[in-house]
């Protein structure tokens, strides 16, 4: 099935909610294109930043002659350079993302993640930002470098349509690999369930942060994974390794599972906070656009 239209992922209603929002980096991000994002490089731009006294070596063309005319002193007029956001979306396509609980209305975690990716890509490209896409499971499956062209959306949507959740996850290794590939500072958006060893995952994320990337982790949950609602005897078959089956009485394990889950989330949240990574948990039963909007609203407030 070829899904290549934006409307396949984003409804007009969703797009309307996002219209007035802009993704603004909390930090100054390098970018080629001038745009809404502040750049640490002062230069030619429309928006005035400040005057500073002239020192030898400054370009003569940057002298504000009008001020000279009034004050008889040489001042350099400085402008704030606007840059475009360069972002890479890392989409987890491992087997565990295929889970689809009854409350998710046939939207699997993978479907949810794909729509979220499309939504973000559309949003960013609409702002003249560059967006790249990486799909991965135990290894990187596809790498689309960031581009700022509007036509780039189609390429991404084609890739999203082709992606299938399969294989095991190995987040830490994949992230180490990607951290080496993404050289320029950018916004790294990870869309995953983050299942795996917390410590190694955090180490991998720290690697990104070390490369001075700004990071958002959208953690996708199915409601079933959060409240473990099973009652009758159930055979749990691993989506990643189908041979791994466990027949259990879920009622006996529920509390232990929830406790384990809580611990896992606390460790992850604490780790992300430590590394100043935004961790945004999302459940597949909540409208992803609303979740995204609320995230962006928070982001704007923090600016």
């Amino acid at each position, binding site marked *: 099935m070829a899904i290549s239209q934006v409307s396949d992922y984003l409804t007009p209603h969703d797009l309307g909610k996002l219209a007035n929002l802009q993704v603004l980096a909390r930090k100054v991000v390098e970018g080629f294109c001038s745009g809404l994002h502040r750049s640490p490089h002062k230069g030619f731009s429309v928006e005035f930043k400040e005057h500073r006294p002239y020192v030898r070596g400054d370009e003569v063309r940057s002298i504000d002659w009008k001020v000279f005319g009034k004050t008889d002193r040489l001042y350099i007029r400085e402008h704030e350079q606007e840059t475009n956001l360069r972002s890479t979306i890392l989409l987890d396509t491992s087997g565990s993302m295929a*889970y689809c609980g009854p409350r998710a209305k046939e939207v699997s975690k993978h479907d949810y993640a794909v729509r979220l990716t499309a939504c973000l890509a559309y949003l960013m490209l609409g702002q003249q930002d560059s967006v790249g896409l990486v799909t991965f499971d135990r290894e990187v499956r596809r790498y689309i470098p960031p581009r700022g062209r509007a036509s780039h959306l189609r390429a991404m949507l084609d890739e999203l349509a082709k992606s299938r959740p399969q294989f095991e996850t190995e987040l830490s290794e994949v992230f180490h690999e990607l951290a080496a590939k993404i050289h320029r500072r950018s916004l790294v958006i990870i869309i995953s369930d983050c*299942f795996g060893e917390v410590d190694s995952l955090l180490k991998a994320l720290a690697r990104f942060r070390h490369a001075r990337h700004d990071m958002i982790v959208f953690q996708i949950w*199915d409601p079933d994974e959060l409240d473990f609602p099973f009652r009758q005897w159930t055979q749990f078959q*691993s989506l990643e390794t189908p041979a791994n089956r*466990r027949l259990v009485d879920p009622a006996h394990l529920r509390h*232990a599972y929830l406790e384990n889950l809580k611990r896992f989330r606390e460790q992850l949240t604490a780790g992300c906070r430590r590394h100043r990574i935004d961790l945004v948990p999302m459940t597949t039963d909540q409208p992803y656009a609303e979740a995204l909007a609320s995230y962006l609203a928070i982001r704007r407030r923090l600016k």
Partner: protein
Amino acid sequence: MTLLNGILAFGAAAFAIPLLIHLLNRSRFRTVEWGAMHLLESVLRVNQRRVRLEQIILLLVRCAIPAVLAFCLARPVLTGWQTLPGDAPASTVILLDNSYSMDVADNGRKRLAEAIDQAGQVVAALARGSEIAVVQTGGKPQPVLDRPIFDVKTMIQQLRLVRGGYGAADPAESLEAGLGILSGMANARRDLVYFSDFQHSDWDATPRDRLQRIRRRIEEMPIRPTVTFVDLGRSVEENVSVDSLEFSTRALGVDEDLQIRATLRNHGPRAHDAARARFRIDGLEQSASQIALPAKAAAQVLFTCRFKTPGSHLVEVEAAVDDRLPTDNRYAAAVPVLERIGVLLVDGAPSDQPLEGETDFLSVALTPYTFGRAKLSDLIETKTVPPGELNEKAVAGARVVVLANVPKLSDDQVGLLGRYVHGGGSLLVFSGNKIDIAWYNKALYSDGSGLLPMTVDAAAGSGQADAKSSRIVAQHFEHPALEIFNDRENGNLADAEIRKWYRLSRVRQSVAEAGVTPVSTGASSEPFVLARLETGDPLIVQRRIGEGLVVQVATACDAEWSNLPMRPIYLPLMQHLITTMASQVVPPCNFEAGRPLVAVLPGESQAEPLALTSPDGTRRTVRPVARGTQSMVEYARTLEPGVYTLVGSDARPLHFVARTPRAESDLRMLDEKRLASLAADLGADVVRSGREYLELDRSRRHGREIWKYLLAGVLGLMFLELVLQQRFARVRT
């Protein structure tokens, strides 16, 4: 272990339901393709063994719930304790004390009435199919019905018919009787319930080892009964009783004075300074007397009376005091007033000279008023005949025949005397110088099968007042005829000098040697020596033969061989001997309750039925039976104390009084401690009322029926299941 609803025990198979559910759940699992396997696996890794163990525990608890519930519904009973549940039929014996102390009124109601009511409650509460026996324990334990019955209503009706006033209860005998009945009963649960006032006097007389024997008997019974004492007694201190009536003479004639000595006893601590004692004859008050009754002491009051008519009369003394036990304030006795006692004197050595004949002294001694020409009449009427005139005509009407120094008699006369004695007559044989010893031994002793109590051997003594004479041994006399001489004021038998006598002895070996079977003399008793001489020789011997009595005297009745007729004791001795002989063959008309009533009907044999009125007012018809020349009435059911009156066709009543000892008039009851100790000795429980008994009985049964505990167990298991479920679902990381 017994199950009352055994069929429900099969419900225990329901333990399989949780097991099946468990297995079914396991087999009908759903498969979920799960993503967050890493979260699940770490939980499983840590909890797998615990979860499995918890599942097994939970499964066991869940399986146990229906199983225990089914067991509970089956109502198991621990039969190891030898009890059965409430609705199982029981074999119950109720011992009901109807002794006269139960007539004490507590709060205006007799204890016996209360006991009957409470026993009725106990009987009514018995389960269907229960076997019931009631034994009234007053006097002698006696079942109300011949055998245990199953009909509760009938038993309650019978209980209401139980009358009080019976003699003192013997607790040990009552318990033994109850246990005897219980051992023959059928049901698996056995109860012995004893309703009594538990008096000191009853239980003090019961030796402890006898109680221990009863305890052992209870313990050795195949099905051990429960024993419960229902104590209805409250100690009462104040009580006055008339304990006894004593008469001055044994045989009483018309117009003779009779002195009646009544003993009254005050059991209480309060003295009665002017207690009134009323004296009644045949129900009519004759006199009354005031008497001071000190605290805890007895006093005697004397009444004198005279009867105008012969026959059976009833005298009664009543202490007119206000106490809570009126039953023992009266004491009655029957007095037979004889018209005459005919005595036939057969004189073996008659003489024309006064006091020279063999029976002259005797005749005077027996009829002193006649000889003294006094106005008073003698009770005894003598008739003297020579041996040749001893015939049926002469014997007819004589209560006593006296053979005085009779040499020998014809065979017909011996046969006549034999029939006379066997038929209830009395024969007094005096020795003398004329008797033919060989004939006496052969015809009258006849190797022990004849009339004489002993053989007549050689004469002893010289007949003269010398050293060879002997005297009567002054001993305590047991025989009623000589009883008065126990009191020296009435004379001393030892004063008389016996100069000559025959040695009397029993020769039984000769019979054995001869190889001859002795001729049966019917219901003959062994000879009994009434008095002995200092030499050791018997002087007066007695033997019962058939219905009659023979007394043999070793010496003569005149003054030839002894100075006895010259002594003042001769008259009372002969009088008492003759009257006792005349009355001893007549059965007593005052007897202990429970002994058979025997009446010898006057006149010729008769077969017409008589009416017998019991103390409770019931009338029965009794038929006389012929015994020898007389006819008699025998009636054995005289347990109830009181007056029995026999009325024949001549409408002259014959009174008989069944009496009880007055031990129960002391109304002190066993205190709680003593009663508890006694109960402990017997392994019994003590309660204060029938209701308490029922509660105790219920608690005994329920205490051993375990369904309540099982139900509690089921609830406990359900609660445990909840707790376990909650606990097992807790986090274990």
